[in-house]
């Protein structure tokens, strides 16, 4: 593989935006029949490199060659026509159109200007069969899961005789089984000789599939490595440019034992709470200072549990006790009054308000809790905002910057700060680390530990088992919208055991405790 000629080379690429140097003299090459991971923290220049390659942005300096010929695409369509196809992080399909149409729209087979629908469907079936996918191509794409939609997007990308396939964070919304399916297809395409450029935040996935890795940092090239010569730790160091010991410190810190925490009075006690069609009745007790991890596959009901506890959805059975007193959590305002905060998984749509400043975003929840007729004095605002910008090391540390200009990790921290300002007693974090870079991830994990040491209860929801295992005192496992087990996170519990529980739904006996 190493001796074959690169299908794509980029040499000396530089790209600046007003005030920012996004890429500086970056080289990149892609061999046919390889999966090549492009790694780097948020803002390292991965997206810019892809956009420069596909012609979304112009190039300031440097050369791109495809099969030895110099090329300069003026947009994704031209790039695709030349054999460089891109599948973006958010699935970019038209939800209202059929699967077949989504694959072919813009280049439908036609006769005298009329779309030949029979041919469209036939070729769509053929193409999906190549991806080992047997679905009804006439159904609207919105009726399928995200994973299938991703496959449809890939089918669209490879239809044009693609030689280079760019996958920009294709796995961020897939669960483990779906990722496996995607990887199988990626290997198949690789074996057919297609060069795949793969961007992801998940380190495990890189080691599961990639042949080589190119690392970027701050818009410059760190290096290109065969996967075998770059162990995971070394990769992380190259990405962030310093020794990463924050996570190790978390592991080393003495934590109060589960027994010690559970000896205290429970803060929230849930019994047989459920909502038809969302989550089966479950019971859960959360003590002050306790981190309860919620593990399970995507769509297993994790978010639904969080929403019930926060009153965002109304339970149709069961009861909740807060501080031993029975209470109906009928809406978020009541939950906030009782000291429960909720950081949504969907920070763009449900959390962050991009056009408001960092300060305004942070004080939102506190202001809501006080009522809108009692504005928070400006001095108090400044004090709080400054404190949390420092405490969470939000960059840039400018309270008046509109939040949309911040990176994903920093937006997440602003969202966290919003709830921390209200000083909740239970903080529900739904996928707080998804789609943010490893440095920010570590900081958020460290923060969770500090908060719980300070007596705050945390319900921590994450698809990444390691994270859940590292932080939680107790792990509740969700499966098929049912809470199937609660495991005390002691030495006997490891990722394998949790995964087995997710897979088989056993250990039910513990759920009844």
């Amino acid at each position: 593989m190493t001796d074959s000629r690169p299908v794509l080379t980029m040499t000396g690429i530089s790209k600046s935006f007003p005030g920012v140097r996004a890429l500086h003299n970056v080289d990149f090459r892609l061999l046919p029949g390889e999966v090549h991971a492009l790694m780097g923290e948020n803002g390292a220049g991965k997206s810019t490199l892809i956009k420069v390659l596909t012609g979304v942005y112009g190039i300031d300096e440097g050369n791109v060659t495809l099969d030895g010929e110099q090329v300069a695409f003026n947009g994704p369509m031209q790039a695709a026509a030349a054999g460089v196809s891109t599948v973006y992080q958010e699935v970019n399909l038209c939800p209202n159109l059929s699967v077949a149409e989504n694959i072919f729209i813009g280049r439908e087979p036609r006769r005298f200007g009329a779309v030949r629908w029979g041919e469209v469907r036939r070729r769509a079936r053929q193409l999906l069969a190549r991806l080992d996918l047997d679905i009804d191509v006439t159904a609207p794409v919105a009726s399928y899961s995200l994973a299938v939609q991703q496959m449809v997007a890939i089918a669209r990308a490879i239809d044009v005789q693609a030689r280079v396939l760019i996958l920009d964070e294709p796995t961020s919304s897939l669960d483990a089984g779906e990722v496996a399916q995607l990887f199988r297809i990626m290997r198949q395409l690789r074996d057919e000789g297609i060069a795949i450029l793969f961007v992801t935040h998940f380190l495990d996935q890189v080691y599961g599939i990639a042949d080589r890795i190119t690392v970027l940092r701050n818009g410059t090239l760190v290096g290109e490595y065969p996967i075998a010569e770059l162990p995971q730790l070394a990769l992380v160091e190259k990405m962030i440019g310093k020794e990463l010991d924050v996570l190790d410190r978390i592991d080393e810190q003495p934590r109060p034992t589960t027994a010690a925490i559970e000896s205290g009075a429970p803060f929230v006690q849930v019994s047989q709470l459920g909502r038809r069609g969302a989550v089966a009745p479950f019971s859960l007790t959360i003590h002050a200072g306790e981190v309860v991890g919620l593990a399970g596959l995507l769509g297993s009901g994790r978010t639904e549990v969080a929403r019930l506890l926060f009153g965002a959805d109304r339970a149709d059975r069961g009861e909740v006790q807060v501080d031993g007193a029975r209470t109906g959590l009928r809406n978020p305002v009541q939950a906030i009054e009782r000291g429960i905060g909720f950081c949504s998984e969907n920070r763009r749509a449900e959390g962050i308000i991009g056009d408001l400043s960092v300060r305004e975003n942070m004080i939102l929840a506190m202001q809501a809790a006080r009522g809108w007729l009692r504005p928070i004095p400006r001095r108090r605002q400044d004090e709080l905002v400054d404190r949390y910008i420092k405490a969470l090391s939000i960059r840039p540390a400018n309270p008046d910057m509109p939040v949309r200009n911040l990176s994903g990790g920093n937006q997440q921290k602003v969202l966290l700060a919003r709830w921390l300002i209200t000083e909740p007693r239970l903080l529900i974090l739904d996928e707080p680390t998804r789609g943010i870079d490893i440095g920010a991830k570590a900081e958020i994990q460290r923060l969770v530990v500090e908060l719980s040491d300070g007596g705050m209860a945390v319900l921590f929801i994450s698809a990444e088992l390691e994270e859940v295992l590292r932080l939680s005192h107790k792990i509740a496992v969700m499966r098929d919208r049912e809470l199937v087990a609660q495991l005390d996170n002691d030495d006997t519990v490891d990722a394998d055991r949790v995964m087995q529980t997710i897979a088989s739904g056993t250990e039910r006996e513990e759920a009844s405790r």
Partner: protein
Amino acid sequence: MSTFPISAPSWAKLPRRHMPVLATLALLLVMYGIGVSQYRAFSNVQVVFNVFIDNGFLLVIAVGMTFVILTGGIDLSVGSVAAMTAMVSAWLLQSGLPALLVLVIALLIGPTLGFLMGCAIHFFDIQPFIVTLAGMFFARGMCTFISDASIPITDGFWTTMSQYRIGDPRGNFVSISVLVAFAVVLIAAYVLAYTRLGRNVYAIGGNPQSALLMGLPVGRTRIAVYTISGLCAAIGGILLSFYTLSGAPLIAIGMELDVIAAVVIGGTVLTGGSGYIFGTVLGVLVLGVIQTLITFDGSLNSWWTKIVIGGLLFAFILLQRLIGIRYK
């Protein structure tokens, strides 16, 4: 190799997508049934033909609006543009220009204005609502600028087109307007179902951002739908002038709202991406049959039409929400 156990939930398949149109069809049949059972003369074929004759212009304009709404936009200018087209025709005919030349000029005004509005919407990224509202005021102002009184049309071609009857031996007939409207409907249905332009319209309505990244010509399509809507409004204006044989500055006020109501009752989702020309035809017919029913009753004030349309519109939007044809 095992494939994933993947099947679309059964509700997502065809019937659900077609439900708004089927509901409109059922409503239309029920209303027609009520008419037939209440009034002897209602079963006369000419009643149905009259609905088409009286609403031919509305149907044409609604077809153009369907294109716009399918992309998730709105065009408030259509009523005024139709009035302006009729006004300009009457004025030019009065000043002695030959009928065919007048026809060509009148038919160019609407699409030109639509093209300009489309450009404003696309290039300056302005809300369609406000751009076409400006277009509406402009066109209405032009009507009064031409004349603040109604101008009668006495031209031979116009009167022929107005009075020519295409009928069967039993005396039932339709006007030329109806044939024009049918032609527009058929062409539009073909364009939407079988051409790239039509499919791009649906794609943009589904998700404009995706459409852009899929390499579809979003800007061109967007400008095209407002141009098409302008053209349909112009054709509608000509049909209106056939119908009234005059150009009046205050005619068709509020017609854009009737048109939007017809399109939505016909099952096109206001946020775009879902709907059919056939539904729009049904929507216009529902409006026409309501009017006919109220005319037949004789004792009811014509404002009842508005009240019923208001109720229906609300019911249909609620229906769309309930069956969840909303992708965004």
